[in-house]
């Protein structure tokens, strides 16, 4: 087995090293795996895009040419043929391989920060901007004249 070169960091390389790790010449989905019903096959493709090839790095089983990915693709198609819904297929895979197979993690307590991190930053930004705008408005409005200043002003007018 060829050890992947983790030190080579350009975009293609991560994929490449795994390609070589499972050095087969086959490209991802092969015609012999496909379902004859194009509608079911389309569903299988869509599901496959959300399932991680667990031995690969950030590749879905739809993209991967690893042996395990092929097994999973066939498994997905078997479940679809057995009449599972998309969600049932995913649940089945999670039961067998753990949540690690999902490329889109479920919204749960331990993924809370992941899902709401972006929106929270947005919210903080908006709140900050509004308060800054208010403060700026308050600061930029001229202070009313004090009693003494008013008197001085009147004196000036009188002198004219």
């Amino acid at each position: 087995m060829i050890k992947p070169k983790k030190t080579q960091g350009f975009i293609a390389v991560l994929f490449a090293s795994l390609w070589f790790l499972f050095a087969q010449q086959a490209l991802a989905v092969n015609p012999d795996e496909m379902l004859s019903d194009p509608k079911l096959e389309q569903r299988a493709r869509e599901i496959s895009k959300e399932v991680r090839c667990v031995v690969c790095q950030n590749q879905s089983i739809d993209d991967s040419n690893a042996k395990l990915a092929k097994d999973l693709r066939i498994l997905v198609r078997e479940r679809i043929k057995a009449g599972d819904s998309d969600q049932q297929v995913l649940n089945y895979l999670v039961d067998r391989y753990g949540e690690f197979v999902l490329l889109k993690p479920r919204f749960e307590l331990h993924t809370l920060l992941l899902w709401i991190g972006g929106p929270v930053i947005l919210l903080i930004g908006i709140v900050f901007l509004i308060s800054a705008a208010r403060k700026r408005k308050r600061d930029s409005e001229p202070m009313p004249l004090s009693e003494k200043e008013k008197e001085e002003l009147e004196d000036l007018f009188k002198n004219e």
Partner: protein
Amino acid sequence: MPYENSMIIELGHYALILALVVSALQSVLPVWGALKHDTRLTATAPTLAYLSFALVLLAFLALTHAYITSDFSVFNVFENSHTDKPLIYKISGVWGNHEGSILLWVLILVLFGALVAAFGKNLPAELKATTLGTQGWVSFAFLLFVVTASNPFLRLEQPPVQGQDLNPMLQDIGLAIHPPLLYIGYVGFSIVFSFASAALLLGRLDAAWARWVRPWVLASWIFLTLGIAMGSYWAYYELGWGGWWFWDPVENASFMPWLTGTALMHSALVMEKRDSLKVWTVFLAIVTFSLSLLGTFLVRSGVLTSVHAFAVDPARGIFILTILIIFICGSLALFAMRAPLLRKGGIFAPISREGALVMNNLFLTTATAAVFFGTLYPLILEAATGDKISVGAPFFNLTFAPIMVPVLIMMPFGQLLAWKRGDLWGVTQRLTGAFVLTLLSAIALGWWMGGNHIFAVIGFGFALWAIFGSLWEIWDRVQLKKVGPVRAWKRFWGLPKTVWSTALGHLGIGLTALGIVTTSVYETETVLVMKPGETRQIGEYDVTYKGNRDHEGPNYVERVAYFDLKQDNKFLHEMAPTKRVYNASGRPMSETSIVSFGFSQVYFAVGDETEDGGIVTRIYHKPLILLIWIGCLVMSLGGFIGMIDRRLRVGAPKPAQKQRKKQQQGAAA
């Protein structure tokens, strides 16, 4: 010959160590001089910057020489090269590995120091010295890393006769271009970081600072844009499954500094023109380079392979992590101490050019946060609890894309709003024409593409709005109807460069968005087994498999499969995807065959041969996909125009410089 070789490589090694010493001096003397107002010490900065550049360049050239001459006594060359490799891949192989690519990183780091020394003649002496000093800290840290933990000059006592060859995936013109471009962008932000730290150290931050910094921000941004686009196109044609962006952590690592760099470019504009958003701009400058460092850590430490792989061989990872923590924490602490002392700048109403640019910054920051959480959360979760989760493309598409929608909608408004206090209703009225044009073209395009996809039409709408909206300012300013074609033509060429720069920058975003929407919704993929002589109809094309032929390359053998691509019985193109096996490593590779029709492409890749003589063939039709990368080129052009505009205005006006030269000459005579 072997003797000469070893002299050169040892000379390079020596130069590298000297560079470490020089950068240590560079990090102390100028800053000390600036703090003590000692002009003799501040004056050393440019010399030291030039010197460290010259020394690192020497080291880099020595390593390149070892690659070209296949000197396998150098361990790095032995591991990553081969005598049969074509010359260009021998050269690009220098940075096709960990040690060499970090050396390239450092080379670009010191290059930027030298550039500031050369072009920063109009900078105040103390700012310039402190900036170069800060740059010296960064180069010292990374040179120390190279010399102690990642040295490319280590030798083998018994030189092998042959090397292990470079990963075939990297034997491509993409490796020659992509990393240098990307690194210039990535590392270029270091100089912006150094400017920010210097300003904080000296306690002086004003509109002039933004004016000095903006060309550097723009230059780095242009290269980062081109680098990312190039990497995307490389992955697209090289990997053979038709994807062009994978939300891979390595990609995200370069995308995050791009997002904050884009925000920085816009906020620096507000700072320069209105002396406002100063604190935020400095913060962004720090964050952008911190994200560049984070990217380097993610890519170089092996932490991405898995948290465990990192734990097995942690030396390099820990080193970079330490550099990362020192620089991020140090600069943020400096920021926290000095930022409250900065004077508040010009005020503006929420509806104004400034307000629009603040909105741009808000959404770009949110987008960065979404990518940041998605990239780092699995690592942190695994390190903290041991739970393993995956975050991939489906997550990012869901969280990132919605943030871009308001950005696309707001762009044309931002361009037209006035500084300080804008008239939103007035701008909306001025944009009516662009809006009508967008609506009609989105419907027309949707209908032309098949007319059955309402989401596609909405997507076209956002992209086309950005396209027409960005060009509308030019149309609006030329006033063709009022002044007639002759004067309009003159006005067209007389428009300020900033108008062109903004319009092209935004146009590029619109074009990229249009390419993304079209190709994601309407691309087709066909996978089938074809036998020699067989013709199949694929969408609007007829494809005939003519058979295959073996061919021998310089360091590989390949089997080329030939296909005819026809449409309505008209011959269009011969497609020749191949499967290769590289001699040295025995590794297989498949090379795609791509042909463009307008902005659309047809993409062929071949896989296994079946027992009955057929071949597994994948055929993609990718409508308007080229717009994705053309958009990036247009964006970069916009950035370039903005930059040459700056160069004309930065610093002393030309006549004054001439005068000064004359005076100096006079004095000399």
